């Protein structure tokens, strides 16, 4: 086995400064948006009493789901023994923590009373899946923290395997928990209870890997560290596999929904009558995020692996955002059915499709979360020995 | 921590430092109605706890008509202006506000709770 050498990224280079400066600017803009939202109240956003969760939640759920997926690369190496992935495990853990932190920040900053965060930490309703998620998220940091420590400190090496396994199991539970937030909403017809958890897991594999790959590619480009095409090709095929799994569970969700009595209305809305939601579903979620990456990964396009991987990852991220948008916004745009089979109207927008037009403010908040994640990653690779200096040596094993 | 702060404050406001701080401590508007729900030193020290306890009792358990109701504090401790209109209890110089400004406490209660006994200011 070839020994991997890790080294910190050199700070204060021109590229590093530009990157950190850019990310900080986005975060400052997001904080300004938060200040406005909290000072004025949420009426300045596009969110209403009908569409109560909006753009911030799309970004937050995306980042949280991606976080657990980003840990996969580490798990591939340490739980499933794929040695090619082992040098990437540290980065995988860091990106996972960073994405989770960014997602949680967005979630918290969108609260009506973010000043009461202490209340959320001290009052627990153990019947609430939301409260359980708070525990799962905090635990995720702890578990990955320990896992990273066992990787980076040779004296803790004997805890490496159990820590890796714990992190892997924890991330599965975490994504299941996130899926259940939606799966448990019995009255919202768009959310088919049984399919939500597996769909979220498959989706987390795909978008988590895509985010990880983008960080990896940019980091290696900017620090001029070598990456082997062999590794990139491997990652591309893995991404294709996850995208296929996501597509499969997505199809399963919609098929079971179509079977379900009384759910045909909401399905028709999402699949063909829903305007923006429908376009996002077919063009974004299925087209950009599903079919295109599959073609790039497995079709015979002649571009270099780096180019194909970059393209596929960007598409998966875009498609992933669309998928979560369809889920969260589409699921709320469809009205609650108080009297199945009847036509209902009221002064409170009953029986109508609810429009949602996000404002710049809430979009900035969402982007701020992404920037927070990336900034944490940059600081992490600068301060710690996370990145292998060289990922181009001939890979020892070829098991796939 | 808060206990210590409260003890110190109680001491400060009541016995030892009374003389030293008397000059600085702002005058509070007179309350209307009868006696306070507890003796003044007790009120100064414990009102935050009393209110929080009362709040849970009333809202979560439905216990009404007992001691430390926030509505009642406002009823006694709010004042009328020169134009005989009620002055919001959060206005500068009013009972709670004056003292809180002095000790730099910023309870958020009156974001929701009515600041006068009547309907609207």
């Amino acid at each position: 086995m070839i020994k991997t050498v890790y080294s910190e990224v050199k700070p204060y280079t021109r590229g590093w400064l530009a990157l950190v400066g850019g990310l900080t600017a986005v975060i400052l803009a997001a904080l300004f948006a938060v200040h406005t939202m909290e000072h004025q109240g949420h009426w300045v956003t596009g969110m209403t009493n009908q569409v109560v969760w909006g753009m911030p939640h799309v970004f937050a759920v995306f980042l949280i789901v991606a976080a657990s997926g980003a840990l996969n690369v580490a798990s591939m190496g340490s739980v499933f023994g794929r040695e090619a992935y082992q040098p990437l495990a540290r980065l995988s853990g860091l990106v996972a923590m960073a994405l989770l932190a960014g997602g949680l920040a967005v979630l918290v900053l969108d609260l009506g009373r973010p000043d009461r965060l202490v209340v959320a930490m001290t009052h627990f309703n153990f019947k609430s899946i939301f409260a359980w998620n708070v525990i799962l998220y905090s635990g995720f940091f702890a578990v990955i923290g320990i896992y990273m420590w066992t990787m980076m400190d040779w004296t803790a090496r004997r805890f490496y395997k159990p820590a890796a396994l714990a992190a892997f199991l924890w991330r599965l539970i975490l994504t299941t928990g996130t899926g259940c937030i939606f799966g448990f909403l019995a009255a919202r017809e768009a959310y088919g209870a049984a399919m939500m958890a597996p769909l979220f897991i498959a989706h987390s594999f795909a978008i988590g890997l895509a985010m990880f790959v983008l960080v990896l590619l940019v980091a290696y480009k900017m620090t001029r560290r070598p990456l082997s095409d062999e590794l990139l090709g491997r990652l591309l095929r893995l991404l294709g596999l996850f995208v296929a799994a996501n597509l499969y569970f997505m199809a399963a969700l919609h098929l079971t929904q179509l079977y379900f009595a009384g759910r045909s209305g909401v399905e028709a809305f999402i699949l063909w009558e829903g305007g923006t939601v429908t376009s996002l579903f077919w063009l974004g979620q299925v087209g950009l995020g599903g079919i295109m990456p599959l073609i790039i990964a497995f079709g015979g396009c002649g571009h270099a692996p780096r180019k194909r991987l970059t393209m596929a990852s960007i598409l998966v991220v875009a498609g992933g955002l669309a998928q979560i948008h369809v889920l969260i916004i589409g699921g709320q745009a469809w009205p609650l059915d108080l009297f199945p089979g009847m036509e209902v109207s009221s002064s409170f927008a009953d029986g109508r499709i609810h429009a949602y037009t996000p404002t710049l403010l809430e979009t900035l908040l969402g982007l701020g979360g992404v920037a927070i994640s990336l900034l944490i990653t940059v600081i992490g690779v600068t301060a710690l020995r996370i990145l292998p200096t060289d990922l181009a040596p001939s890979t020892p094993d070829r098991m796939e | 921590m808060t206990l210590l702060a409260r003890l110190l404050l109680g001491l400060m406001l009541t016995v030892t430092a009374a003389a030293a701080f008397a000059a600085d401590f702002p005058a509070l508007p007179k309350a209307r109605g009868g006696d306070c729900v507890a003796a003044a030193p007790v009120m100064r020290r414990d009102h935050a706890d009393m209110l929080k306890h009362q709040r849970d009792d009333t809202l979560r358990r439905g216990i009404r008509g007992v001691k430390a109701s926030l509505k009642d504090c406002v009823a006694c401790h709010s004042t009328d202006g020169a134009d005989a209109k009620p002055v919001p209890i959060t206005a500068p110089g009013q009972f709670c506000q004056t003292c809180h400004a002095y000790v730099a406490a910023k309870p958020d209660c009156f974001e929701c709770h009515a600041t006068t006994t009547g309907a609207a200011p």
Partner: protein
Amino acid sequence: MTEVSRRHLLLASGAVLITRAAQARAPGEAASPSQRWGLLIDTAKCDSGCTACIDGCKAEMGLTGHDRPLTDAQYIRKLTVKDPMDGNTHFLPVMCQHCAKPACVDVCPTGASMKRADGIVLVDRHICIGCRYCMMACPYKARSFTHEEQSGQKPHLPRGKGTVEGCTLCVHRIDAGGQPACVEACATKGKGAMLFGDLKDPGSTIARRVAAEATTRIRADLGLGPAVRYQGI
């Protein structure tokens, strides 16, 4: 005095008499699980043009609003329900259904959404963090988020930016032995379509009528056990 208004007067006084069942608890006494407050709404008596219950609620709760229908709070609203098969149309008020197994209480992360011992479902706005998960979970769309700063609140109904609110069944009136403002308004200004009372007291009018007559609950299939029952729908 015309006949109609005399009838209204009679109905009104009748409603007030019938629902005297509610008695103010002694000071210091907690709400009791031996009671279960509920409503019975007769849709046959609910007219299309009438907004008495809504106006009564707004006045009682000080829901002034900011003229922004999508973000202003509505504790009670009137639904127009039309059968697409025959075009028949009915009207009925919908508010928090004060469920026996409220979805909002189950999902609330901090326990701010709560059910009092006597079955009234409330938001403890002192520990509400404004996450709005309860609004996602409620099948009745009964809750509103306070989207902006409020002023001129009523002393009995504090409300402020950043928390979730909804119908309290006029808990402040019930605790004082009264009945909800909407019920009172419907009796005096409407046609007396709403009846309030203790579903657990076998002697109460509401319990006797629910026992004797067919009533329905909205989305009974979800099994949440609403305390608001409807007739004629």
